[in-house]
């Protein structure tokens, strides 16, 4: 890290590729999108240039409902990096979307002790920089 002393530690952020740019552009607009194969209609995550199921090469972007359930999670007491060290304790979860795919996110705006496997969650968006907005999730029954 070459950031000057006293500057806040930067968060590790994605650098979109041509292929993933639509995912990150959608997040910036407050939408969660996933890929759907035009041939076999199956969903996949993360984005790829082909369908993992049928090798189809035409993939559409589908706006997901933003609803899912916690497949599993942990609460980190140590930060994975200097930026996250400022946020401990924080929850990291594997979320299974209604559309059937899984992704990783923090469970935000929720009490850590209320987080449990199987609980319904809803997508929210966290602006992490001018360019990057991260899809995140909160417990569906948490007070907004």
């Amino acid at each position, binding site marked *: 890290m070459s950031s000057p002393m006293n500057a806040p530690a930067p*968060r*590790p*952020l*994605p*650098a*979109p*590729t041509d292929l*993933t740019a639509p995912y990150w552009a959608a997040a910036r607009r407050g939408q969660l999108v996933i890929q759907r194969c035009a041939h076999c209609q199956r969903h996949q*995550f*993360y984005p790829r240039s082909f369908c*993992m199921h049928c090798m189809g090469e035409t993939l559409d972007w589908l706006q997901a409902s933003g609803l899912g359930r916690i*497949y*599993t*999670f*942990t*609460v*980190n*007491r*140590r*930060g*994975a*990096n200097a*930026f*996250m060290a400022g*946020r401990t304790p*924080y929850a*990291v979860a*594997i979320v299974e979307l209604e559309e059937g*795919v*899984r*992704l*990783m*996110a*923090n469970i935000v705006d929720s009490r850590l002790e209320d987080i*449990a*496997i*199987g609980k319904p969650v809803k997508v929210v968006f966290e602006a*992490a920089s001018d360019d*990057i907005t*991260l899809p995140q999730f909160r417990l569906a029954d948490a007070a907004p």
Partner: protein
Amino acid sequence: MNKELSGSVAIVGAAESDLGKVPGMTALEMQAQASLRALNDAGLRLQDVDGVFAHTDDRFAGLQLAEYLGIRPSYIDSTNVGGMSNILHVGHAMAAIAAGMCSVALVTYGSTQLSSGTRKVGGAFDGARSPVGQFISPYGQLNPIGYYAMAANLHMHRYGTTSEQLAEVAVAARKWAQLNPKAYRTEPLSIEDVLSSPLVADPLRSRDICLVTDAGGAFILTTADRAKDLRRPPVYVLGIAEAFSHHYTPFSTADWLDTGVARTGEAALGMAGLTRNDIDVVQIYDHFTIGVIQALEELGFCKRGEGGAFVAGGRLGPDGDFPINTSGGGLSFNHPGMFGMLLVLEAVHQLRQEAGRRQLPKARTALVHAPGMVFSANTTMILGVQ
């Protein structure tokens, strides 16, 4: 691997490098030290080595080592799939030897992650354009700790496994370490001590997590024919199998508690023509306490979901009726970046009846299981002596 290759090669020399905290050495120097010790153990010369299987935390490990040792091998493999890599190298060496590409294989590893301070809880940060950089790193996952914490949470949720049961694995490891003069941590450790150690990633506490030490090791493989004439009792490779699925984004792994361990266990035992009941020595990679419980289940030593109850009551320790990880394991003996090498060396020590106070009374066959990365890769190997 083809059953016909069962027993076709043997480990004929084996040695650890200096262990624990070794601030004055590089990983390469540790590999060379262990390699020379293993060759001396086997009664072989450097010039006999024509296959090099080496990985470190650096790149081009095989070439570095060949240059340093001053040898010109005809076969090199630096495959790195995480902790199990040196066991994967055994399978690759068997295939290379069977294909006539080499005849004396040196397998080695070295790490100075403790002294160099290179171990980071966030893991290696892949490029920001990689799948990890885009879909994992922004979320602050501890790596690999977070993944195993998530698996432990799932195990507890599905089966009712408790933190006390996880702690049993750490306590048993410490008791074995107290019998091992080379162990890094030997002070007494109780279930209560584990439960009062700080949470790192719920539900895993610091004592559920392996050590960070320097360490290295090496072993020599050659044909069963040649092994007969060497000075040490040959430790035959009877069975070996590998399975792979992902890097750091296991989004497509349907069940995080069914990760490929079972597949490798069945295949390795099948190749060896043995059953679980024929196994005397069990060495299971203990990077995290939950990993041992999961592997015991997936390998079929107990039923799915019963691993927590299975390890309770000190069962895995020196006084238990299912003694495993007799070195003290990654939890208490030593854990460099990748523990696979030390797992194999302990199995060899047991099978050659040289494990001192921790020697098991019956040690004719051994099962070694290890994963790589975050249950991304798996291997099971069966070893035996005549």
